[in-house]
């Protein structure tokens, strides 16, 4: 194979049943066609995994993938995609996380790992400088993340080892179990931790000490990075100071801060959860990811007798603060922080867990779930003490917690169909922390993605509603600001190109926050940067968008093969009814007819038919003709 720049072109295959590890080449053409990350992983998944398999069976593949820019010097090139079939949705499972694990996998000599089979006993995988070994993890099964992380580092004799882990939640296969690296960077949402647990794989430890990633034009790479950071620092920006916690005040102010299980869009006690309170009361320091100048991560420490929070697990961010705060009617950052820690220790998705508990609270207050059914817990909104008890049951998969940790559909089947109207999910995955009744583009970002509702699917409506925000996307044809609640064909078209761009971000593994308006990269500079790293003319902004489009169709096909249909591209009924409470969006709702038209417009733009099935033209257009007749 010819020398590549930015990538080794190496894939590690791990068969846990046979306990065999092998290395194979990733041909250059695959990087050019799929870039890496989510899209290259999905290519392998579609090629190699049969439709209809149980995602928790040995036949299921679990794929970790980076790209040719992961671990290179640019800001935010730290993301690792994990892809497989989701035990939560039954469809395409994709999740991204930052940290250091992705770059370290590259330094260890690989772009990706495909795991198949199932080990008889718990094991972990160690990859150091191109050598992979399967080691026993019997002694780690049942341990919390911190203890496991420490033990593996000690065993391997290298404290700089980066470890992606599952906890009890993954071991016991909660449908929304995460894989967490460095105790605080979560590949969350869709149960990839459960897939890992089903294989008896506790952790993957990576370390590279020898090889330096070759860059095609190192000087050019350095110049691009230096200039971007210099220019970025000259623009006022509060993101480094507050991180995602700025979201509490900002979403409250525009009235889309999900409160009381998405009944309201403002929370009267929001100041108790806001960034300033966070900084004054619980913040120990900020944290960051590989080569990121923003440092948006938070590190919290609490020890006040009632609440104890270990800084090793980082700190709650905006989404978690909504999920266990306003959504559950809890007005205190300390129990929110404990909830965050419980989830991190056991590797459970915070959004899913918090929004599930908010659903329990609403059902309880409406007499649809009883105290007896909740093992004696009174689950009224605002009861933080019982929220934490119930969450602990979910994290350990005990009693009623085991039912709730298997997702809404499972919980509705247990508690009764009448509880379904309060379940705020799409494709069985809970809503993130932005009410789409005031951000209409997010209605599409929640209804349409193959991997379920995603707050990182596109740039949000209020940013694109400003002249400056829209101008950031001029290079991809977004030429004018549109109102946040607009759901016209023009908005759908903007959503389509923006989604394609964001899919492209996940293909190269760049953090969305490292792109303007929050971070140093402009969207045009990403193309220049990729070319400087690889020397390939074909990797540019156009290519990024085209591969993002390709990803939407590939993941759609995955879902069609698994039996998902147009009926799954919807929203919970609540979104079609007026938002209660106060704030700028009070009374707003999504018009059903406009929404249905927007969905059909999106299908048409993608060259999918009325039922959301990709046409043959679409497959040819996206260089996916190898999928003709496959779904």
């Amino acid at each position, binding site marked *: 194979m010819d020398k590549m720049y930015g990538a080794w072109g190496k894939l590690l295959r791990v068969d846990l049943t046979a306990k065999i590890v092998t290395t194979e080449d990733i041909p250059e053409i695959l990087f050019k066609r799929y870039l890496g990350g989510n899209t290259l992983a999905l290519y392998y998944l579609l090629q190699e995994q049969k439709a209809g398999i149980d995602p928790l069976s040995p036949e299921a593949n679990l794929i970790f993938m980076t790209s040719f820019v992961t671990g290179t010097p640019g800001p935010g090139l730290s993301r690792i995609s994990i892809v497989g079939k989701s035990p939560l949705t039954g469809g395409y499972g994709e999740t991204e996380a930052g940290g250091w694990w992705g770059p370290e996998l590259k330094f260890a000599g690989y772009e990706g790992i495909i795991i198949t089979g199932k080990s008889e006993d718990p094991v972990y995988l160690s990859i150091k400088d191109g050598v992979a070994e399967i080691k026993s993890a019997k002694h780690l099964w049942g341990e919390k993340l911190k203890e496991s992380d420490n033990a593996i580092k000690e065993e391997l004799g290298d404290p700089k080892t980066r470890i992606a882990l599952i906890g009890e939640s993954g071991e016991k296969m909660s449908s929304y179990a995460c894989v967490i690296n460095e105790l605080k960077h979560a590949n969350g949402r869709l149960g990839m931790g459960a897939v890992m647990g089903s294989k008896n794989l506790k952790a993957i430890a990576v370390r590279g000490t020898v090889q330096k990633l070759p860059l095609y034009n190192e000087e050019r790479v350095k110049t691009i990075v230096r200039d971007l950071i210099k220019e970025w620092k000259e623009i006022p920006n509060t993101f480094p100071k507050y991180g995602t916690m700025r979201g509490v005040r900002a979403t409250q102010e525009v009235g889309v801060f999900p409160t009381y299980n998405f009944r309201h869009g403002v929370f009267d006690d929001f100041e108790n959860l806001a960034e300033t309170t966070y900084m004054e009361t619980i913040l120990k320091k900020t944290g960051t990811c590989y080569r990121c100048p923003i440092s948006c991560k938070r590190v919290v420490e609490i020890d006040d007798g009632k609440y104890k929070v270990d800084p090793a697990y980082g700190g709650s961010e905006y989404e978690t603060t909504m999920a266990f705060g306003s959504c559950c009617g809890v007005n205190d950052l300390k129990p929110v922080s404990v909830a965050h820690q419980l989830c991190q220790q056991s590797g459970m998705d915070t959004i899913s867990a918090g929004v599930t508990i908010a659903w329990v609270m609403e059902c309880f207050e409406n007499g649809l779930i009883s105290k007896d059914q909740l093992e004696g817990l009174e689950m009224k909104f605002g009861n933080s003490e019982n929220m934490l008890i119930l969450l602990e049951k979910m994290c350990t998969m005990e009693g009623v917690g085991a039912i709730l940790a298997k997702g809404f559909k499972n919980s509705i089947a247990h508690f009764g169909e009448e509880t379904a109207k309060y379940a705020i999910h799409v494709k069985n995955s809970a809503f993130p922390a932005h009410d789409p009744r005031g951000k209409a583009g997010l209605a599409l970002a929640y209804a349409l993605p193959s991997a379920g509702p995603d707050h990182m699917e596109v740039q949000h409506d209020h940013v694109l509603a400003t002249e*400056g925000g829209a101008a950031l996307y001029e290079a991809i044809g977004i030429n004018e600001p549109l109102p946040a609640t607009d759901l016209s064909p023009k908005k759908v078209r903007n959503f389509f190109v923006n989604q394609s761009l964001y899919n492209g971000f996940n293909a190269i593994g760049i953090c969305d926050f490292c792109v303007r308006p929050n971070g140093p990269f402009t969207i045009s500079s990403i193309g220049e940067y990729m070319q400087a790293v690889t020397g390939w003319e074909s990797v540019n902004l156009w290519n990024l968008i085209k591969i993002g489009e390709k990803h939407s169709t590939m993941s759609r096909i995955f879902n069609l093969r698994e039996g998902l249909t147009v009926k799954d591209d919807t929203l919970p009924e609540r979104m079609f009814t007026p938002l209660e409470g106060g704030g700028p969006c009070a009374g707003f709702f999504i018009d059903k007819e406009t929404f249905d038209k927007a969905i059909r417009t999106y299908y048409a733009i993608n060259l999918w038919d009325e039922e959301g099935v990709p046409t043959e033209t679409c497959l040819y257009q996206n260089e996916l003709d190898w999928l003709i007749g496959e779904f």
Partner: protein
Amino acid sequence: MKITVRGEPEFGLPKDFEEVELQESTIESVMEHFNVDPKIRKHLFPIVNNKMGKLSQELQEGDKIILQSPYSGG
């Protein structure tokens, strides 16, 4: 005309609502008044009288304005 304004202190805007007197009835003049950096003016989103607004909208006496940099993501 008199209006009240608040926003992000890091951009020069008052943290709590503050009354200001303006010669012109534009949001641009509010930003001018507080010396908001021109680099970010077009990125700010106005909420006027508890309703989503536009940078181009004309202000009225007594309006209550929040100017924020909109939030996106998780």
